[in-house]
């Protein structure tokens, strides 16, 4: 599709800071936006952005509305059945359950409680499975249309906890996060990947190669440092780059296909 029109349609969300959001000055920005802009530049075609949300990002890929989705898209089995992913994933993340300080000690305490999730996020299934593991009572899950609404519901006491990818919670809670804390540790580890339409391996390879080129020549690191580095807008500790084991390959080596 890109070949004939010279335009690449890239889908990203706009309410998931710091991955993709509208900043105070009204600009559509975020890690996903920077990464996809770099990819479009390498493709050498015009970039046309398409707004997607958690519910449309898969169907837009499946029906060909967009050529790729760069929108905090975790790689999951159920999504893999519908679409394909470029390799490698570009960020690892895990989910946390977030609640008022001192209210809960670990995830098991959330059994039977009210929990907010962003509709369309796989946190919906993940938190239930996590609580099922400890044989807890099924939680009452409220779904909202954005992460900001989830956090507002938590602040107002409409829910007991809010669960989402840790990087997103950091972005949404921002400075107000001081009164809240993650309950227990990170659960349901995941990797953000670039979604591409199913059954088009040529296109998928093209994107994979470009992504790996960006990782090889340092463009990816630049974008990462801008957002999540020590002096970035949302410093992440520990580093969220999907790196190879340090003992074998040294510090922060990304996995790139050999020639």
């Amino acid at each position, binding site marked *: *599709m890109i070949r004939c029109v010279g335009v690449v*349609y890239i889908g990203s969300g706009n309410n998931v800071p710091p991955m993709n959001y509208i900043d105070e000055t009204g600009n559509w920005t975020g890690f996903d936006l920077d990464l996809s802009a770099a990819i479009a530049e390498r493709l050498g075609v015009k970039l046309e952005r398409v707004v997607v949300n*958690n*519910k*449309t990002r*898969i*169907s837009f890929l*499946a*029906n*060909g*509305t967009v050529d790729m989705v760069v929108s905090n898209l975790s790689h999951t089995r*159920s*999504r893999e*059945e*519908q679409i394909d992913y470029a390799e490698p994933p570009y960020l690892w993340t895990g989910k946390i359950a977030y609640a008022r300080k001192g209210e809960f000690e670990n995830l098991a305490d959330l059994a039977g409680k009210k929990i907010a999730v962003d*509709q*369309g*996020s796989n946190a*919906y*299934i993940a938190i239930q499975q996590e609580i099922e593991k400890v044989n807890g009572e099924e939680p*009452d899950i*409220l*779904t*909202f*249309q954005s992460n900001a609404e989830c956090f*507002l519901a938590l602040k*107002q*006491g*409409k829910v007991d906890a809010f669960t989402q990818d840790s990087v997103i919670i950091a972005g949404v809670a921002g400075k107000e996060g001081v009164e809240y804390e993650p309950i227990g540790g990170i659960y349901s580890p995941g990797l953000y990947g670039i979604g591409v339409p199913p059954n088009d391996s040529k296109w998928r390879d093209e994107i994979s190669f470009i992504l790996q080129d960006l990782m090889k020549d340092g463009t990816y690191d630049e974008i990462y440092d801008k957002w999540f580095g020590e002096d970035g807008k949302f410093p992440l500790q520990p580093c969220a780059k999907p790196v190879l084991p340090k003992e074998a390959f040294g510090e922060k080596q990304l996995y790139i296909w050999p020639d």
Partner: protein
Amino acid sequence: MKLFINYEFDWQKILSGQYLEWILQGIRISLSLMLISSMLASVLGVLLTFGLLSKHRLVRSGSSLFIELCRNIPTLIWLLFFYYVFPELFSEPVKTMLNSSQAINYWAAIAGLSISSSGYIAEIIRGGILGVSREQISAAHTLGHSQWEIWKFIILPQAIRICYPPFVSRLIHNMKNSSLALALSVHEIVWATQQIESLTFRGIEAAIIATIFFLTINYVFSRLALLLEKKFLINNNKKIKKVKDVGGYL
């Protein structure tokens, strides 16, 4: 962009187990939202009309201000207002009670939908009442009919006939608006279809189910309304004629 969608339907998946349960629950909740909010909106609308026609200036301007607020604020904002802002207007014990209540999202949706529609309904009824010719009313006064008789035999039968069609349209509009409740995590039919889409990615099937539901409900409702109109409002017409015959002047 591909213009033609090559899509294979998979109904089996979404019409079974948890998903079917969500759909059935969604239909139940949607129907109750539609029914309760339409009734409340109608009652509130009638009260507001009385307010508009009141002898007291304060009541009149109060009602008119309220109607403007109802009509000029988007329905979704009303829903979000009742869910997020309304509890904050109270002080501590009530606030926490409201916020932690299990059903606040459902009742916030009912309140938002009813308020939003009531302003329109009040205006529709007022329009119906004003649509009755002033000459008829003056004539009836001259003939010595009481206020009550004038309302019962002259204003109401004609006003109802005038405002019935737009009133039915407004209720249909309100029934469609009920889907906005999904923003408050009310598990109505569109919530169910969105949830199914986000878990199975079968968005088209899910949307088709919601569409069929709304089409059916609203079609049946508007047909019923038309039947009622034919059966009762045309009879009312005859009644007016009878009054005319008796009065001779009307």
